[in-house]
C-alpha cells in the first residue's frame, strides 16, 4: 500500500470545502489522503517587514510532523507565503522530498478585486496541492499547459491547467524515475 498523505490545515484555516479538497487530491494522486488540523504556532515564521510567512522555514517545521511509516505532509494555509528572493509563492516543496506547503491567499478571486467564487477557489487549491505533491514525487515543471505540473506564476496560469498529471508525467510517476522521499 502507498504511504498516506497528511493534508495539514495550519493555523486557523478550516474551510467548509476541506473534505472536497481531500477527496480530489486523493483521486488525482491515487494516494490515501488524511485531512486534519495541525496545531503549530506560525508566529516564528512571520516576517513583519514583508507581512508574509517564510515558506522555506515553514517547510522545515513541517518535516518534523511527517505521518508515521514514510508518509508525506502538505501544509495548507490562508496566509501569504514568500521565499527570500521572490515577492511571493503559491506554494513550495522540496524536489523529491516529503513535505510541501501551499497558500490559498492568492487563489481567492477577492485577492484580485473580483467577486467571490468558491468553486474556482477550490479548483485552484486542488491544483496547487497536487502540483506541490508532484514536486515531492520528483516531477519538475511540464511544458504541457494542461498538465498540473505546468508552472504557474500567475493565478490565470493555474486556471489554464487541469488537476491531472499528463500522460508523460504519469508515466514518470509509474516508472518511479520521479523519486521517492528523502530528507
Amino acid at each position, binding site marked *: 500500500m502507498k504511504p498516506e498523505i497528511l493534508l495539514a490545515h495550519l493555523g486557523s484555516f478550516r474551510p467548509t470545502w476541506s473534505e472536497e479538497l481531500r477527496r480530489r487530491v486523493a483521486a488525482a494522486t491515487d494516494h490515501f489522503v488524511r485531512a486534519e488540523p495541525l496545531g503549530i504556532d506560525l508566529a516564528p515564521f512571520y516576517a513583519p517587514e*514583508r507581512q508574509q510567512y517564510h*515558506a*522555506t522555514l515553514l517547510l522545515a517545521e513541517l518535516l518534523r510532523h511527517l505521518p508515521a511509516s514514510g508518509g508525506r505532509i502538505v501544509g495548507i494555509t490562508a496566509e501569504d507565503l*514568500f*521565499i*527570500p*528572493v*521572490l*515577492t*511571493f*509563492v503559491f506554494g*513550495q*516543496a*522540496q*524536489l523529491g522530498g516529503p513535505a510541501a506547503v501551499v497558500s490559498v491567499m492568492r487563489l481567492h478571486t477577492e485577492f484580485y478585486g473580483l467577486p467571490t467564487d468558491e468553486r474556482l477557489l477550490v479548483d485552484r487549491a486542488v491544483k496547487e496541492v497536487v502540483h506541490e505533491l508532484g*514536486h515531492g514525487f520528483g516531477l*519538475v*515543471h511540464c*511544458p*504541457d499547459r494542461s498538465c498540473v505540473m505546468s*508552472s504557474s*506564476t*500567475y493565478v490565470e496560469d493555474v486556471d489554464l491547467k487541469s488537476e491531472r498529471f499528463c500522460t508523460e508525467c504519469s508515466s514518470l510517476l509509474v516508472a518511479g524515475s520521479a523519486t521517492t522521499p528523502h530528507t
Partner: protein
Amino acid sequence: MSHRKPRIMIVDDERSVRESLREWFLEDGFEVVTAEDGLDALKKLDSDPFDLLVVDLKMPRMDGISLQRRLRETHPDLTIIILTAFASVETAVEALKLGAFDYVTKPVDPDELSHTVRRALERKQLTDENARLRDKVTQLATAAPIVGSSRGMERVMELVGTVAETDASVVIRGESGTGKELIARAIHGASPRRFFPIVAVNCGAIPETLLESELFGHEKGAFTGAHYRRKGKLELANGGTLFLDEIGEIPAKMQVDLLRVLESHRFNRLGGAQEIESDFRLVCATNRDLEALVKEGRFREDLYYRIHVFSIEIPPLRERREDIPLLVEHFVEKLSRSMGKPSKQLSEESEELLQAYDWPGNVRELENAIERAMVIGTTDSIRPQDLPLQVEQEGGTPRDRSLESLESEHIARVLREESGNVSQAARVLGIDRGTLYNKIKKYGIRSG
C-alpha cells in the same frame, strides 16, 4: 535547447537566498550549483560548463562586479543575470555595461524571474547556434573544396563568385551526384550572408503533407501531433540562405504559397495568425528540366521566373574527365585522414578504368568507389579489382545477358549511385521500397 538539462549557478552570500533559488530552479528542471561568493564561483566554473549564472552584486571577498570583470576575460560567452537590492540599481546598470544579460531586484516577482531566465536561455541558444554555424561554414570551406580544373568547373566557380555578391535567386542544375549542395554552400559562404545560417530542405525527400509545416512552421495545436510551436525553415533562414533542393518536386499548392512568400518575404506559421517576416536569399537546385515542366504545366511559370534569376549548370563528370585524377587524389587524401589509413596511389590500369567509365552517379559515385577501394584494398595502390565498377569490358558486353542478371546489375548500380539509400534508389527505379528490398535479397546484392 537539447534534452540536456540547462545548468545554472547561483552566486549569493546569503544562504537562504541560495537555497530558495536552488529549489525554485530545480523544480523548473535545471541542474543547479550554488556558490557563496565570486571566488567560490570561479573555482566551480573551472570544472564545468554553465548555461547561466545568477549573481548577487553585494558579496564579501569578491563581489558581483569584480566577478564579472574576471569572467569577461576567462568566460566571455557566459550569460549572467544580476540579482540586486533596490538600493543598488546603479551598480546593476554598471553590470549591464559589463555585458550582463539583465538584472532583477530582490525580491523579484516570480513571473519576472522566469521570464528573464527564459529570455536569457533563448539568447544563449541563438549565440551557440550561430557559433556552431560559423564553425560549420569554416569546416565546409576546408573539408569540402570544389575540386576541378576543367574548363567546365572553372566556369562554374566564376559564376559562383559573381552571384555570391548579389542577393538574387539562383538555380543550380546538374545530374544527381554532381555536388549541387556543395555549390549552394559555396555561394552562401562567399556571400555577405555567410555569418547567418544556410538552411537546406530537400523538397523531394519530404512527404507533401509534412513539407508545408517543415517550410512554414506551425503553432501548437495547428494539427494532430503539433504539441509544440515549431519554427519553419523559412523562418530559420532569416538573415541567411534558404537552399531548396529538388525544387522541381514541390507540389502545385506549395508552388503558390512559395511564390507568395518570395514576393513579400512574409508568411504565417500553420495555424498562426501572426505574420512573420523573414529575410533570406533563395538558392534552388534540380536535376529536372524545369523548362519542360513549365511547358507541361507542372511547374508554375511565374515561380520559374522568380527563382531563376541566375542559373549555374554543373557539368556531369563524363564531360570533365580531366578532373578525375584531381578528384581521386582529393578523396584519397580526405579518406585516409578520416580512416587513419596510409594514402594510396592509383595504378595505371585503374586510372584507365576510371577514365573509361561513364559515371552516371557522377562525383558522388566516384567518391563511393574510392571509399570502397580504401576499405577493401590490401596494397598501397588502388587496383582494378578494388573498384566496384561494372565497366563493360572486352567487347563491351557482359557475359551473362539474362534479364535477371541485367536487373541485378542495374539495381546494384543505382544503389551505389544513391549511396546505398534504399528509399532514394526505389524512387529512381520507379518501384516501391518493399519490392526493392525483395530484389536485393533475391539477388544477394550488398548495399552500401
